[in-house]
């Protein structure tokens, strides 16, 4: 497609309690743009976190980072050793960034 740029999209789901650590890691990697979605439930190796259960107080966070291919690889490399502690999941996929907005990647 015209006026688009091939980029990597990284989706990370982790427990809320690790959010600060992840953000720090992103800023060490000089990531200049990401989105954060809160109050996410789910099933994983640590069991079910119901998004409807108000007694269970654990929630997940989804952080979506879109960046160029090189920084993406570097980010993956520096995230990978921490994933065991973070839990959750980390996905990489391809996308096209529609050019136009101020560059925040």
């Amino acid at each position, binding site marked *: 497609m015209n006026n688009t740029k091939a980029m990597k999209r990284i989706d990370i789901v982790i427990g809320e309690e690790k959010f600060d650590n992840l953000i720090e890691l992103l800023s060490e990697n000089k990531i200049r743009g990401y989105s954060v979605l809160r109050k996410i439930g789910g099933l994983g190796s*640590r069991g079910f976190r119901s998004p409807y259960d108000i*007694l*269970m*107080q*654990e929630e997940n966070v989804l952080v979506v980072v879109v960046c160029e291919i090189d920084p993406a690889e570097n980010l993956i490399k520096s995230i990978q050793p921490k994933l065991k502690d973070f839990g959750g999941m980390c996905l990489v996929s391809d996308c096209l960034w529609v050019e136009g907005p101020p560059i925040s990647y």
Partner: protein
Amino acid sequence: MATIQPVVFFFVLGVLAGVVKSDLKIPEALYKSLSIFLLIAIGFKGGVSMAKYDIMEVLPIASAMVVLAAMVPLTAYPILRFVGKFSQADAGSISAHYGSVSAVTFAVGVAYLANINQTSEGYMALIMALMEIPALVTGVILAKAGANKAEGEKTQWGKLLHEILTGTSLILLIGGVIIGYYAGVTNNVAPLDKMYMDLFMGVLALFLLEMGLLASARLKAVLEKGVFIVAFGILFPLTAGLFGAYVGWYFQLSPGGTMLLAVLYASCSYIAAPAAMRIAVPEADPAVSIGASLGVTFPFNIFVGVPIYWQMAEWFHSIPLD
């Protein structure tokens, strides 16, 4: 015996709404706001009436009652482990839940006393706040002691203690006690009582409505676990309550205070304990412990237990101490 208080019927209403699958939902923010309110109010009210006591006299008695509370999980554990055949982790975790307390059950006890025109020692709120510490620590030790730890699995004692000591309920209860005490001593209770005392019962009603909704969702899960855990959820609090009534009477609490101590020993946690156990004993199954606590023991206590604990308190107090 007094009539059942209207406020507990809000619990029934919540259960019914859950059972008929009503679309009634209490917003999560309301649920959390109400619990913040109740914790502050319980602490504040206790603090205000503590202002009449000499703190130096109170502290040793209170500490003794807190420490003795560790007996509750120590008794629960062998029953759960050897009669109930639960795993070490589950037995420890459930013990911690039953050693710990439920501020809402306590609130229903306070409301019951108000209803029959009885008073109690203000420092019961303080005891409630502190009781969680020995209960949860004992529960975790029971769950972990002697177990072969898999590589890399260490009990995170630091994290656990931090969780216990800085937990919402402890912070708000103790904060409420101190501010209430200060307000009492400086004669400044007046404008705050309109909210934290007068509205107590009305807020409790809303909270019980929500608890009913939650309990109805949990009950099914616990019934599937079989009859043992249901029987435990009813018989164990009666035993713990009897022990609490004895301890209260022994330390010469008023009948009202004796009953509240019985309520504290008999009640069990469904907020603080699950949070602590998730950190310290992640291998335990929260569905059983929360289910028994919220689905069985909580309703039993507010409907049947509280009047019985009052009978126990009266009965002990009919015995001459000296």
